[in-house]
């Protein structure tokens, strides 16, 4: 797609989003929507701004980000190892693949109390939930990447005498980079979702908990302000990852198109 049409689509999207926000603002200010249900976007931003100046809120935000980050790192490492093992041993793959590909439908948060019993009432169970939600995407993408390397590349490398560690580093790793990036994006999404969800339902700390608390306290302004924050953070992270992906995969039209 040419950059010119790219930019005009971006423009249309921007227009759509701003019109939507404008209508929402209008609806709230005119009282078409009850103030207990929805809060005008301008008020959301204002409340968010105030919240960001409160130490307690900043602490909660920091907790959530650190949990999500740790969950992502562990999920990526675990997923890459598992994906590699599944590629190496097809028997393992036969058993695990159906489980992992329907993993998203398993309510992993039901394990949360059990995790608290193992790890105590701290950050670790939340991180564990994040890992549990994210690792399967990474494992499946890693396996797919390795499976999808065209045989002709492996054969050519063998003929050239490139084996073992140089083969891993200079053939396999670059070849699976597109799949790794896809897996990484998905893992980042799910780690964040998992952490927020765990905090929302069952944790006494963090951004998810803060939203739940605001809801229970009938503090709709803070609630929406925090929801807005999550939307901003989530879309920014996704955007950054997509940019990184574009740079890293700049020259590949042939292998592993997404």
């Amino acid at each position: 797609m040419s950059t010119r049409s790219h930019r005009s689509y971006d423009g249309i999207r921007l227009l759509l989003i701003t019109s939507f926000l404008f209508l929402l603002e209008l609806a709230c200010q005119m009282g078409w929507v009850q103030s207990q249900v929805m809060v005008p976007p301008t008020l959301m931003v204002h409340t968010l701004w105030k919240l960001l100046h409160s130490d307690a809120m900043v602490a909660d935000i920091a907790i959530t980000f650190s949990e999500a980050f740790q969950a992502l790192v562990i999920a990526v490492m675990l997923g890459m190892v598992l994906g590699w093992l599944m590629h190496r041993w097809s028997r393992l793959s036969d058993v695990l693949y159906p489980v992992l590909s329907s993993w998203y439908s398993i309510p992993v948060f039901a394990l949360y109390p059990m995790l608290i019993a193992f790890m105590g009432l701290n950050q670790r169970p939340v991180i564990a939930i994040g890992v549990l939600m994210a690792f399967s995407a990474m494992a499946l993408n890693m396996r797919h990447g390795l499976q999808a390397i065209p045989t002709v590349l492996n054969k050519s490398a063998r003929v050239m005498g490139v084996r073992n560690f140089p083969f891993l580093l200079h053939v396999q790793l670059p070849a699976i980079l597109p799949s790794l990036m896809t897996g990484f994006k998905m893992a980042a999404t799910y780690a964040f979702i998992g952490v927020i969800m765990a905090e929302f339902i069952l944790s006494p700390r963090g951004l998810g908990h803060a939203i739940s608390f605001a809801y229970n306290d009938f503090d709709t302004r803070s609630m929406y302000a925090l929801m807005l924050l999550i939307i901003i953070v989530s879309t920014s992270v996704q955007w950054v990852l997509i940019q990184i992906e574009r740079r890293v995969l700049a020259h590949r039209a042939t292998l592993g198109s997404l």
Partner: protein
Amino acid sequence: MAGHLSVEQLSLTYRSAGQAHTHAFGPVSFSVAPGEFVSIVGPSGCGKSSLLECVAGLIKPTKGEVNLNGQRIRDEVPAEVGMVFQQDASFPWLTVADNIAFGLRYGREIISTERIRFRVEEALEQVGLTEFANHYPSQLSGGMRQRVSMARTLVMRPQLLLLDEPFAALDPQTRLLMGEELLQLWRQSRASVLLITHSLEEAVMLSDRVLVMSARPGLLRHELVTGWSRDRHTDITTHQDFSAHVNALWAVLREEAIAAMRMQA
């Protein structure tokens, strides 16, 4: 005896998942003299590619021997062998120059950066890709990408060059041009060449000898000596013996091709 290949009673039988034994090819015996250009033609499924991979040392044969310069090839590809495949084997994440340098950088020998650069420049010139040194494969046509694979192989100075239908994915005109280039590279490098192709014209045009394989399990049914001089070009097609050679090959191959078609039905 640089590039002397000797294949004796080579055969391959394998079993794919849950199926009976498949006898891929053999026993076949033939040799390639140093600097000789030999083609193998045969119907689809006759085991030509498997044969070539056994010769390379990529697959271990069930029976028989492959010897290069008197040394037995087992399950390791010797440094003297180079191979170009039908599919595009250029690494999409590297530039043309880095692709060509790949085997020199990460392969068996340790070569200085200076020497690598020199040899890569030389190879780029040989295949006519000097202006594209910093392009990526995605920016090149199919024919150019095959030239990258060719350069990457030749830069390692193989004594035996194995080609598995290298031009099959290209259009006929490009194919002809690539054939011309191949002859030139062959003359320059003095390597022995073993080429697999479906095209009888291509085989007769390029080779000193053509071997015909039967339908599966592939056996050598016929051998044709073209008698061309080393200095030939693709206009050898106008030689008075050319059509006769092609017809002679087809006379043998036709039966095998029909048998192969029936097998697949």
